Each structure stands twice: as structure tokens, then as C-alpha cells.
């Protein structure tokens, strides 16, 4: 069969030009990489607008562009909760409340903060699980990209995997974290400029927002939901059966909004590393808040095209269909790229496809740079060879990059048997990340929390997540390691896999919170007040108010972005 999308000469010219620039930036930065601090921390010298956009872009991997487009088609505007109740408040919280401790502690990584605040075993547990997770995510990104190029353009799977992996490897080895960050900014603009025309054309074709509402009312009716379900984000959250996500407002706000989003945005070294590279405390605090502004608007370019796609499929004469999966249901993961092919002529199509590839690569590069730092500082320097020269660690960092990329390729081939990328990633987040936010919350704001408490809290939090997943099942699913119920009994059935994920995260978080508090109170504090200065809220002197104009103050900026997000929630309620 022929492939659904055909690229012309101009499209390939754009693609090539882009990758020349990506590699060129790595090459230009090579002479700046003199110490391990340059390579892993960018020498803490990058201005806030750059770290801010990189903060956003490092997360723009597979789950963003493909996953959010797919969810837009499957669930409608309810998907925007991932941004308006999830990401944005968490990013503002990170900038205002948590960044002073990360940046101020001079820790070089998130696990290293845990070592300073708690103890060695807590750091080891976090460093190891994080290293595994970054490789996993990076491999999934790579796999998804290669599969996409194979399905839509007919490119060879193996060729796509190795070419993308080699490009990412080359620019990180050359320019380290700086190269990754600069390329992430390039990728941010590619994604915005590549997808914005698609959103505009799609919305115009659907007859504007009002026209889209009419079309999507038909989609909702077909699935026996109220007419506005696809275009109203809050009105149908009263009960799990009233919306396609299968979640009610409490599970959404607590599970996604509080536990999962704060757990990811506030503790994942992948994104926090970008802020740590900023050139001052104020710039580090502004980093996630600057990122929140475009983040707030991203639903319009990543979710909207998915919504338009499902509307088009409804129209019998539109001639737009999605390739189907094995069981005959439409493959929503292809909604976004198929829309590119549907609306964009040669020229812009090349720009759109380059943006798509850029998004996968930024996701992968973000993971690889976080991996090489944690591996080199928290595992290698800590356990294997503590007293080598700085040049030695720089060399180990480069080797770790190669190692990380090769492992990702391995994961990509393993991943050929997994289906929905989004739910799989959420599952991993729930097991490992959800308890972590409880540890940081207690660590930063309760001075009595100690090393034993943190370690056993994390351990039992992760076990609680796994146990909850193993004892519950989404409606209609059969027992299995991916779906749940694998502990031999099904104690509760959730309306959807999403609801199960949110509640798994809530259980993990609550268990970690309770165990950390109990164990901390039962055992002695292992750090003196002096050691905890700068790491815990109550023991850290307030920084003198910096003399800055209002638009550079983290608190003011945070308030502005929160107010705007609230307005979006109300407008699209």
C-alpha cells in the first residue's frame, strides 16, 4: 500500500537545513566545554528566557505532541486539564517555593539535594530509579518517532532509529547540557511555528469555535454523552460516567492536578536541571514561571488539531480517516500527523514534520542529559570512583551519553510490543514519581523529616503504587501486568485506565507522606540545624528583596500566569 503522506524536495530541504543547524550549535559550543560543570550544568550561566523555553521544550516529547493530539480526539477539551489544572500551577509552585532550595543548596542534581537534605540511601534510591526512568522515556520517544515515520512516510524503522539517535548523541557529546538547552529553544520555536498554521486552518475549516462545537456535539452524541462534552472542560466532571475520561473532579484535581503534576514538574530532574543552569537565583526562579506562559497556550496548538480531526472524521463527506489499529478502532496517535498531511501543502508540510521530529528529539535529548548527569555525579563519582580529576568526569559524562543513547535504542526495540504511549508513561510516573513529591514537600517544609523517614516513605510509596495497580482494574480490561489486577484479586474496578492511574498516584503519595512522618518521628534527626540551613524553609533566612522591576519578580509573574490560567478555565468551563 502507498503511504499516506508524501514529502517533496522543498520539505526535505527544510528538514536538512534544520538538522545542519542542530549539529552546528553543538559544534560551535564544543570549545566552551572545558570542565564537567560546563558540560553538566552549563556553568550556571544561561539567561532566564532561554532556560525557561528549554524547561518547556525538554518535556515536549512523545507524550506532548502526539499524545495530547490523540487525547484531544479521544476526550476533547477535557485534555486541557493536563495544562490548566496540572502543569501551570505546579510550575508556578516550583518557581516560587521550591527553586530557592534547589538552586540555593548548590546541589548539582535532584538526587544530590536528597543527599544533602536526607541521607545517602535516599539519594541512591532516587538516582537509580531516575536513571532507569530516563532511559526508558528516551527509548519510548525514539520508538514512537520511528514508528510514525514508518507508518506515514514509509521510512525504514531501523534507519530512523539510528539516524535520530546519532544526531542527538552528536550534539550532546559536543556541547553537553548547553547544547541540549540551546537546541531545545530552537525546537520550541519549530513546534510553535510548525503547528500554529495547522491549528488555524483546522479551526477555520470547522467553521470556527462555534462550528467545531456543533460537529463535536455529534461525536459526543454518538458515544452517548451530553452534547457539550468535547468542548466544555468542567461541566461534565461531576461523575466519572458523564465524560469520556472516566474521572470525576476530585480524582482529577487531587490525582492529576496535585500529585502527578506536582510530582513531575517539581521533582523531575529532567526539567529542574534546566532551571539549575540559570545564571542567578532570580533567573532560576523565573525559569519555570516563564515556561508557564507558553505552556498555558499550548492546548491551542496541540489539543485543538486533535479535536478538529475527530470532528472531520464525523463528516461523512470530509474524506478524512485515521489508519486503524489491529482491532479496527482508529489509531488516535496518528491524529496529529495525519492532520498535517491533510491541511499543509508541500513546504509547510516539511516545516510541520521537522517540528514533529524536533519534538521527539528534544524529549530524548532532555532525558539523555539528565541521565548522564545523574549517572556521573550521583552514581559514578559517588560509588565507583570518587577522587578522580575533573577532566576524568567530563570524559565519563561523554561516555555516559553514548551509553545512554545505546540503551535507549535497545528500549526502542523492546517497546515495539507496547501500545498507548501516554498511559504507559503515566503508569511509570505513578509508581516512581508520585511518592517523590511527598518526600520533597516534607523535606523542604518540615525540618523534623529525616533520612530514614524519607527512604522508607519512598520505598513504601512505590510499593503502595504497585500494590494498588495490582489490585484494581479499569472497566472492560482483562487482568494483566499493564492493565492491573495482577496480584490475584481485583478489589475495585475503575471507570477508565486514566482514573486508575490518578488514584494509584494518590495512594502512593498518601502512603509516602504517612510513612515518612511516622518513621521520622520514631527515629532521631540525622542532620543538625546547621547542616539543614538553605535546605529547609524554616531554617533558611529570607533572601533580601531584590531590587527588580515587577516583570522580573517571580511572585508577580506567577500571579499573572495563574490569573490568566484561571480565566482560561472559566472561559472553556
Amino acid at each position, binding site marked *: 500500500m502507498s503511504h499516506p503522506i508524501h514529502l517533496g524536495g*522543498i520539505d526535505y*530541504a*527544510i528538514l536538512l*537545513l*534544520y538538522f545542519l*543547524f542542530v549539529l*552546528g*550549535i553543538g559544534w*560551535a*559550543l564544543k570549545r*566552551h566545554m572545558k570542565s564537567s560543570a560546563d558540560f553538566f550544568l552549563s*556553568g550556571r*550561566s*544561561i539567561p532566564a528566557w*532561554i532556560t525557561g523555553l528549554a524547561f518547556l521544550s525538554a518535556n515536549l516529547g512523545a507524550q506532548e505532541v502526539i499524545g495530547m493530539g490523540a487525547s484531544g480526539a479521544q476526550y476533547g477539551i477535557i485534555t486541557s486539564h493536563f495544562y490548566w489544572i496540572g502543569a501551570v500551577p505546579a510550575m508556578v509552585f516550583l518557581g516560587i517555593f521550591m527553586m530557592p532550595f534547589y538552586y540555593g543548596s548548590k546541589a548539582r542534581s535532584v538526587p544530590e539535594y536528597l543527599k544533602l537534605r536526607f541521607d545517602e540511601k535516599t539519594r541512591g534510591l532516587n538516582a537509580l530509579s531516575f536513571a532507569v526512568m530516563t532511559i526508558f522515556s528516551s527509548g519510548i520517544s525514539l520508538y514512537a518517532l520511528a514508528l510514525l515515520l514508518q507508518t506515514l512516510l514509509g521510512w525504514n524503522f531501523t534507519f530512523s532509529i539510528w539516524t535520530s539517535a546519532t544526531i542527538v548523541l552528536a550534539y550532546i557529546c559536543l556541547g553537553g547540557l*548547553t547544547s541540549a538547552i*540551546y537546541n531545545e*529553544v*530552537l525546537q520550541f*520555536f519549530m513546534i510553535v*511555528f510548525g503547528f500554529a*498554521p495547522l491549528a488555524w*486552518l483546522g479551526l*477555520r*475549516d470547522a467553521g470556527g469555535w462555534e462550528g467545531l462545537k456543533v460537529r463535536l456535539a455529534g461525536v459526543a452524541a454518538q458515544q452517548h454523552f451530553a452534547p457539550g462534552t468535547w468542548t466544555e472542560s468542567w461541566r461534565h466532571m461531576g461523575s466519572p460516567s458523564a465524560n469520556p475520561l472516566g474521572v470525576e473532579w476530585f480524582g482529577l484535581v487531587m490525582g492529576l492536578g496535585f500529585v502527578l503534576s506536582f510530582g513531575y514538574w517539581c521533582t523531575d530532574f529532567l526539567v529542574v536541571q534546566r532551571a539549575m543552569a540559570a545564571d542567578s537565583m532570580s533567573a532560576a526562579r523565573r525559569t519555570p514561571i516563564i515556561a508557564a506562559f507558553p505552556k498555558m497556550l499550548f492546548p491551542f496548538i496541540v489539543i485543538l488539531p486533535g479535536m478538529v480531526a475527530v470532528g472531520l472524521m464525523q463528516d461523512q463527506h470530509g474524506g478524512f480517516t485515521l489508519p486503524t489499529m489491529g482491532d479496527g478502532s482508529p489509531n488516535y496517535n496518528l491524529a496529529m500527523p495525519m492532520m498535517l498531511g*491533510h*491541511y*499543509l*501543502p*508541500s*513546504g*509547510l508540510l516539511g*516545516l510541520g514534520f521537522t517540528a514533529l521530529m524536533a519534538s521527539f528529539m528534544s524529549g530524548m535529548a532532555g532525558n539523555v542529559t539528565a541521565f548522564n548527569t545523574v549517572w556521573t555525579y550521583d552514581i559514578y563519582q559517588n560509588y565507583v570512583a570518587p577522587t578522580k580529576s575533573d577532566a576524568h568526569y567530563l570524559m565519563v559524562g561523554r561516555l555516559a551519553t553514548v551509553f545512554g543513547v545505546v540503551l535507549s535504542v535497545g528500549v526502542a526495540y523492546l517497546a515495539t510490543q507496547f501500545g498507548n504511549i501516554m498511559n504507559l508513561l503515566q503508569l511509570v510516573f505513578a509508581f516512581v514519581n508520585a511518592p517523590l513529591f511527598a518526600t520533597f514537600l516534607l523535606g523542604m517544609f518540615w525540618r523534623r523529616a529525616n533520612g530514614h523517614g524519607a527512604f522508607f516513605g519512598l520505598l513504601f510509596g512505590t510499593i503502595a503504587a504497585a500494590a494498588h495497580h495490582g489490585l484494581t482494574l479499569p472497566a472492560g480490561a482483562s487482568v494483566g501486568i499493564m492493565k492491573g489486577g495482577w496480584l490475584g484479586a481485583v478489589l475495585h474496578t475503575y471507570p477508565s485506565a486514566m482514573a486508575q492511574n490518578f488514584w494509584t498516584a494518590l495512594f502512593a503519595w498518601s502512603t509516602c507522606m504517612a510513612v515518612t512522618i511516622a518513621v521520622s518521628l520514631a527515629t532521631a534527626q540525622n542532620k543538625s540545624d546547621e547542616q539543614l540551613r538553605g535546605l529547609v524553609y524554616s531554617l533558611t533566612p529570607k533572601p533580601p528583596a531584590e531590587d527588580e522591576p515587577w516583570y522580573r519578580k517571580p511572585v508577580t509573574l506567577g500571579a499573572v500566569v495563574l490569573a490568566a490560567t484561571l480565566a482560561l478555565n472559566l472561559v472553556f468551563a
Partner: protein
Amino acid sequence: MNFDLRLPLGLLFSLFGALLVIYGIVSDPAIYARSLGFNVNLDWGLVLLLFGLIMLSLALRARQNRK
């Protein structure tokens, strides 16, 4: 670090813009049926060109100020 990201950013998007504008002028108008009749290559190319030139001029001005 004396490496201004706005320079490669401006250069890349100016080149993209120029490419798309030229292609928009010489390409067969029939290909724009799918983009609802808009010559999006020309229109969006101009936007990219403008963005690229703004970034370039900011970078060059900053360089001049340092001297």
C-alpha cells in the same frame, strides 16, 4: 559565555522564511486546495522571515553594544 542564541535562531528562521516565500511564489497554486485556498507557504513564510530578522537584529544590536 559569549554565544548569543538569537544569532542562529534568527539565521535559521530567516532562511526558512525565505525558502517558503520563494516556494510560495513559484509553486503551482493547485497545491493550496488543501489549505482552503490560502497560499500558506507565502503567508507563513513572511511571518517566519519577519521573526528571523527581528531575532537577527536583536543579536546584532547586542553585539554592537558590547563593543
